């Protein structure tokens, strides 16, 4: 009998993950033991505190470059940078989740189990305090994302995927208003998510089979083994390529890349807006963090082979996002397609096999996260008696009614369109420049052309807001509470600062842009 050998675990390096998961568990207990009227404050405080503590640990760990917990977790530059990004963006999202003054009781349903459109439902919609289980759910999701970007083997990555996906499915279903739409979105997301997970898992199995062919080394799904197998394995390369393809599909699904994006518009539209913002910002970071690690660490040896295929996916993604955004009539769906197109731009960065490509992608993720959260924060504010007014026709003339918020939204749209002096410009530059250096001009050309197409729907909203007369249907902008204001200010300032003075963050990303294997 061989002795059971326990892997050594570096608890300090894992602290951010442990803190978030621990806080989520405490959150569940809070639900059970704290009186209802205190719960919201306690839960929000707990979640924010946990995020802050985890962020502190990330900063303290800033110099860690190690692999711990067997081969399961890698704590290196990209991990720490992306964990930091997830935590900061998640804090902003938590502020939106915690907002209780814009809509009485918050954006979430009070009792998720009441039948939609029943009398009970109408009563809860009219101001009963929203359910507070959302906080532990968000906290769990954050914890899962932190693992996802740190996972150093495919199985850990799969577990992390499920850990952050399941709470998101639930969160999607918890909208206070338009509950059928919300529940439908959640169900779609869940079914398609499970479907994509199956692809991912099947891919893991094929890769495992492939690694068994390395002479003198056991099979495994940790990235070091996979990396070795790519160059040394005697197994059929069909296993490798089919496995790589299936893994990519699972990850591209989360990243909302075409043709695996189909869930995105429906889910972004149906989910409660703070959750949409959370998904658009943090899920994006997590999914691309995992993509970067899988393709830069595990499959680096096959980069000549996956680049053309993923490049085609990137171009398709940009095209689908940009072209479909043109005819959208709902602001949340418009932002969903914009997020799809942005996934295409991010893929361009992922495919640039250089340090600059890596750091550019990471910079892009942060910059986009801030802007998109600010955008959804504005969406939560434009509302009438029935909740948010997301149909674009309702935004006509908003510039006359509420010039301040219309100006902010205009600024964010200009950032999305990539106008200089906004982070949209610097971040696009950060991913396109390394792609050009890597002789992938075709990706950059596609990127620039689709950016041009995308400018149209953005500017159409701007034109509607400023150049149309406000009609009777034009809603007013609700004065945001302190929490939304804070999120909005952070998002807009970051968009501006990263556009004017991107150097500090770019330097940070550059310093972090090296994986351990």
């Amino acid at each position: 009998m061989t002795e059971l050998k326990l892997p050594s675990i570096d608890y300090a390096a894992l602290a951010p993950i442990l803190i978030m998961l621990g806080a989520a568990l405490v959150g569940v207990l809070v639900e059970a033991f704290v009186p209802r009227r205190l719960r919201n404050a306690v839960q929000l405080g707990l979640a924010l505190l946990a995020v802050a503590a985890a962020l502190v640990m990330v900063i303290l760990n800033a110099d860690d470059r190690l692999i711990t917990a067997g081969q399961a977790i890698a704590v290196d530059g990209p991990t720490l940078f992306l964990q930091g990004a997830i935590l900061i963006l998640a804090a902003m999202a938590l502020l939106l989740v915690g907002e209780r003054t814009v809509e009485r009781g918050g954006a979430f349903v009070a009792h998720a189990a009441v039948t939609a459109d029943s009398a009970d439902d109408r009563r809860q919609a009219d101001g009963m305090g929203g359910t507070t289980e959302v906080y532990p759910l968000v906290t769990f999701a954050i914890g899962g994302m932190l693992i996802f970007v740190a996972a150093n083997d495919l199985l850990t990555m799969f577990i992390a995927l499920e850990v952050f996906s399941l709470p998101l499915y639930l969160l999607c279903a918890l909208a206070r208003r338009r509950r059928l739409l919300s529940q439908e979105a959640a169900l779609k997301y869940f079914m398609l998510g499970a479907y994509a997970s199956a692809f991912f898992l099947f891919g893991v199995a094929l890769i495992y089979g492939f690694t068994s062919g390395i002479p003198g080394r056991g099979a495994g799904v940790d990235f070091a083994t996979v990396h070795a197998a790519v160059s040394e394995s005697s197994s059929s390369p069909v296993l490798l390529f089919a496995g790589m393809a299936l893994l990519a599909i699972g990850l591209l699904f989360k990243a909302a890349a075409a043709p695996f994006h189909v869930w995105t518009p429906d889910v972004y539209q149906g989910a409660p807006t703070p959750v949409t913002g959370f998904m658009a910002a943090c899920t994006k970071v997590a999914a691309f963090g995992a993509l970067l690690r899988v393709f830069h660490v595990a499959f680096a040896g096959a980069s000549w082979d996956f680049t053309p295929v993923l490049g085609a996916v990137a171009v398709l993604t940009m095209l689908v996002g940009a072209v479909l955004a043109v005819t959208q009539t709902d602001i949340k769906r418009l932002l969903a397609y914009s997020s799809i197109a942005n996934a295409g731009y991010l893929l361009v960065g992922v495919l640039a096999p250089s340090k600059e490509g890596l750091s550019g992608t990471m910079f892009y993720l942060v910059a986009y996260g801030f802007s998109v959260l600010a955008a959804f924060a504005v969406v939560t504010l434009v509302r009438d008696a029935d909740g948010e007014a997301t149909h674009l026709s309702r935004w006509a003339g908003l510039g006359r009614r509420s010039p301040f918020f219309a100006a902010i939204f205009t600024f964010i749209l200009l950032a999305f369109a990539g106008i200089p002096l906004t982070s949209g410009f610097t971040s696009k530059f950060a991913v396109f420049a390394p792609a050009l250096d890597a002789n992938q001009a075709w990706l950059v050309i596609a990127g620039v052309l689709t950016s041009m197409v995308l400018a149209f729907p953005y500017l159409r909203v701007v034109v509607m807001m400023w150049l149309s007369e406000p009609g009777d249907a034009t809603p007013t902008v609700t004065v945001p509470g302190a929490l939304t204001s804070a999120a909005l200010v952070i998002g807009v300032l970051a968009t501006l600062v990263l556009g004017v003075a991107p150097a500090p963050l770019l330097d940070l990303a550059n310093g972090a842009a090296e994986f351990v294997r």
Partner: protein
Amino acid sequence: MEETVEFAQASGLLGSVWLLVAIPLVSAAILLLLGRRADRWGHWLGVAAIGAAFVLGLTYFFQLRGLENKQVEQSLWQFITVGDLKVDFGLLFDPLAAVFVLLITGVGFLIHLYAVEYMAHDEGRRRFFGYFNLFVAAMLLLVLGNNYVMLYFGWEGVGLASYLLISFWYGRPSAATAGKKAFLMNRVGDAGLAIGIFVMFAMLGTTQYDEVFNGVGALSGTTVLVLGLLLLLGATGKSGQFPLQAWLPDAMEGPTPVSALIHAATMVTAGVYLIARSNPIFSANHTLQLVVVSVGAITLLMGCLIGAAKDDIKRVLAWSTVSQIGYMFLGVGLGGAAYALAIVHLLAHGFFKANMFLGAGSVMHGMNDQVDIRRFGNLSKYMKVTWLTFMMGWLAIVGMFPFSGFFSKEPIIVAAFEREGWTAWLFGMAALLGAGLTAFYMTRLFVLTFHGPKRWTEDIEHPHESPKLMTIPLILLAIGSVGAGFLLATSVPDWLEATAGLGGQEEGHEAVLAHWLITTLSLLVTVLGAGLAWFLFRNGTATEPQPAGVLVTAARRNLYTDAVNEAVFEKPGIFLTRALVFLDNRGVDGLVNGLAAAVGGGSGRLRRLQTGFVRSYATSILTGALLVVAAFLAVQAGWLA
């Protein structure tokens, strides 16, 4: 030629020369930014700013007189630094700049004072003074800069102010058009100047006056010629010289003080300043000098001919300005000692032309803004001060002894006769003929306006003399018209000796005619021209246009120069614009709109794939997955092969 130019650093009081530019600029900013709040006192602020600048200018002038090296420069800050390109925001105060400063602020002050009353009934008086101060600031920057970029800065500034002031009454279509015309024609010249500056950068790597002048010797003849022609193009644009003269007469659409200050006394002489300042460049190439002299001679005759056929009092004066600046170009083109003569004529002209413009304004003031000299007559009885002061200006411009024009113009005619060979005859006779013609049309103007029977329109019963605030500047300028010539002619050439390149040049050739003979001849043609005009117009003239011969018709039509401009530039320009618009509408827009329609249509079609059914989503994901796996395997197959 090989002596190097060196400027001293400004110290002491001269370290504050920048105030000359700053004071009018701040005043302009206050007037323009405060808006209506400054309406009540704004004009006095404008006058005070120029007065202060004049006092400062005098102080600096006396300071400079006491200095050994009379060229002091001061670098305020680095204006442009890009790679090798370095431009200082620097000023140069030397004898040439000093006389310009005194002219601009001195005459400028009197005209500002006059304008307080002249514009009293205009709602836009504060705006007017704001622009006026802006002009003075830009003009001072133009003459005070120590490099060509500074000069260009001021050059564009005065261009802007001129544009704003010509179309000051922008409600009138003619004023708006005249402003546009001036702006466009100036752009042609400005482009030349700008390219000239680029050439300096390319060839010499600098635009500082001293470095450029020291470097000119090392350049090839062709380069100097090109550089000089480009600068000349700029000069002709700003100074209304052939072939860019057409805008200046139209610029009279602006208020009369503007015509007096900008389009007679100062801005239009900027071209002369440019050439005088760049004299090391122009002196280095004889072909270049010949071109300048030719431009001067052509323009001076052209101005005389057209001026003789015009009936609008301000336009006659405008054409006489064109013609007199022609004399100045002739002077700076002759080179050597004639540079200083041109500057003397420029200063003298500043006085008597401002005097006559203000006089014309005074006449218009009393005659319900009538400008047609056929509708004046016998005004000497009613507007004594205007009459007498205008007479001083008239005697000065025709070059009658001992008025200032005699001392400033006659030496230029003599200098023209001092050229080599047949060109001495050509340019000398042109200058002489110009003197006779000037005497003719200016006398015509004077007699028709102030003497002979009255031919007023019916609405005027009793023309009144202008108020004190307008007549006092007139009197002061008239004194300048009388006395300035002799004083300037005797002192300025020596004073200018200390300016880079203007001193220490050997005398020109012997004149082809004796000096006394030329003087006698020029006085003779003057008397002849004036006498002829007096004889013809002593009894007034018809108030309606009369049929005329070929030459007069041509002169009335500005010698068909406008027609040429229209045929050569405007028509093809309009055609080109139309063609481009057509191409843009049909070609570019068609392509863009077509693409946009394609995207929109594609979007609409693709949208239908987004059915909302999970089953179709799953199918789409599965299809995508199959494609991706197939693609990977295809790549792998290639890898195997």
